[in-house]
């Protein structure tokens, strides 16, 4: 054990990526193309969400009694074309899906932010400080993993009433454990490394060590978890909205739209199916991107 210098530092993903690519061989190009497609889809969705006011052909909440339940068509109904048809109130489904992307991603990213900050902060604390802080944080984490948080989320939202901030905090906090556990174990390893001892010996303060030397080394794991959590957050928001506990009408959200279209499934399938399929695509694309990032940046996370 003379050599304690690792072949590659954890933050350096390139060596691992090269090895992974070499191993994957002929499947690699296909995988890369799939991932590129997934990434492109997510990027496109982000652009659509940001540009919703300009992209949406119509006002997403404008009702039109004469254009109720119009099937998807290129021709004009009631003076307007409805590419994806209209819903039971005559609202344009395409416009609502576009505005729904905005709500979905807004809640998703905000929830990931909340969960990430809380989870990473507690994970760093537990790993770096150890002792009773570690014990308390990890006990709570275990307890949270030990029961279906979705049910509790439903209970909390039911009591507090659905609103944007409640939704974001509840969805965010439902995911903090993933960050905390991974960061804790990584920090535990990093802390015992010689470079940390060296900085300590040179008089480096704790915030400096954590901020300049620990955080950069765990950043790649953080990105991987955040991506996987984004998929979960988007689906959870849609699920809560579907149950009537998330985004409230008339604000368009994908889950809410699926719920609204349920009664008309037999006669107007497009109301539920369009937002549902987009949600499904989003979920698959984001989680695939996350899986790929994980294999690329941090193969050690596989077991999590």
């Amino acid at each position, binding site marked *: 054990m003379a050599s304690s210098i690792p072949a590659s530092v954890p933050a350096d993903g390139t060596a691992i990526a090269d090895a992974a690519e070499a191993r994957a061989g002929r*499947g690699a190009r296909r995988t890369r193309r799939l991932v590129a497609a997934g990434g492109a889809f997510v990027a496109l969705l982000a652009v659509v969400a940001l540009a919703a006011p300009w992209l949406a052909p119509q006002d997403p909440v404008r009702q039109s009694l004469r254009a109720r339940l119009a099937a998807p068509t290129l021709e004009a109904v009631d003076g307007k074309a409805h590419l994806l048809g209209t819903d039971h109130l005559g609202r344009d489904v395409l416009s609502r899906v576009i505005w729904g992307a905005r709500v979905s991603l807004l809640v998703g990213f905000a929830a990931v932010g909340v969960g990430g900050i809380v989870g990473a902060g507690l994970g760093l604390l537990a790993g770096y400080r150890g002792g009773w802080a570690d014990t308390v944080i990890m*006990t*709570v984490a*275990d*307890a*949270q993993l*030990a*029961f*279906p*948080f*979705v*049910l*509790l989320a*439903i*209970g*909390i939202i*039911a*009591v*507090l009433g659905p609103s944007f901030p409640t939704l974001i905090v509840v969805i965010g906090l439902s995911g903090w454990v993933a960050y905390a556990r991974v960061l804790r174990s990584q920090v535990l390893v990093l802390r015992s490394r010689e470079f940390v001892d060296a900085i300590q010996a040179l008089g480096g303060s704790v915030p400096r060590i954590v901020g300049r030397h620990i955080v950069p080394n765990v950043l790649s794991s953080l990105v991987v978890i955040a991506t996987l959590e984004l*998929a979960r957050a988007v*689906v959870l928001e*849609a*699920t809560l909205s*579907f*149950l*009537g*506990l998330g985004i409230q009408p008339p604000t368009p959200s994908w*889950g809410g739209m*699926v719920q609204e279209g*349920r009664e008309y*499934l*037999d006669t107007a*399938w497009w109301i*539920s*199916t369009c937002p*549902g399929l987009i*949600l*499904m695509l989003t*979920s*698959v694309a984001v*989680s*695939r991107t996350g899986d790929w990032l994980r294999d690329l940046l941090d193969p050690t996370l596989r077991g999590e």
Partner: protein
Amino acid sequence: MRPFLQFLGTRLLRALVAVWLVSTVVFGVMRLSGDPVPLLLPPDAPRSEYARVAAELGLDRPLPVQYVIFLGNTLRGDFGRSLHFRAPAMEVVAGYLPATLELGLTSFAIAVIVAVPVGLLSAVKRNSLLDQSAMAVALVGQSAPTFFLGILFILLFSLKAGWLPTSGRGTLAHLVLPALTLGAFAMASIARLTRSAVLEVLRQDYVRTARAKGLAEWLVVAKHTLKNAAVPIVTITGLQFGGLLGGAVVTETVFAWPGIGRLAIQSIYSRDYPIVQAVVFLSALLFIVINLAVDVVYGLLDPRIRPR
């Protein structure tokens, strides 16, 4: 046996802490929900009547005392009376539990029966068409939102094809779509994990030895691989079973299945909080007990993880 008992003790202790934390959160949420007394009284009730009901519910005591009383009641399964059903909340919930168990166990059984063989075949016939298509379906199944999967199933198999009923409980046909919907995520996860667990074992030296001594391939798989791949499979399977409880809320709502999940959602709408609390607590308890059972099985299967 000693390290195993120790392992068991640690897990039991953790489970108890989890139960305690859940009940504390339930208490906290209940307090946040505001004053329940006006819900129980006619709007024109006099103040003396208000005070009487508040005292009856113990709401005039200090908060710590209320908390202790609450913990005691929780231990006895007493969550108060349902405002809607006019019966003890736990009794009402217990009446709805069989439907949920029926649905949960069926979807779980379907998931395991389909997923384990598919995962095994995928691993043995790695990179074949079967492997690739099964894993593609599994990937989608793992990321598809449960509620939308249910809607799609209803649209395709009930409304368009007319094969199965759209909702309700009764015949075996009523059970098919809800069970598939609820089991989809577990099925996908178990299939993917079975595949990777079997692949991992197939790489081991003892499998190479078994092959080298001329054992038929099916025997290599049956005798040397399955048993060793069982540990991770059992773990994820157990975890998935716990996870089914969360999915039951959504699935039961989509298919109008009369179980505790749908009861919880309906009780939220009618502000019948004792029922909501009883469902949350009962589900958490079930989940924790299942996880504990999985840990025990895990410990029995794999002697290596017993210490700690």
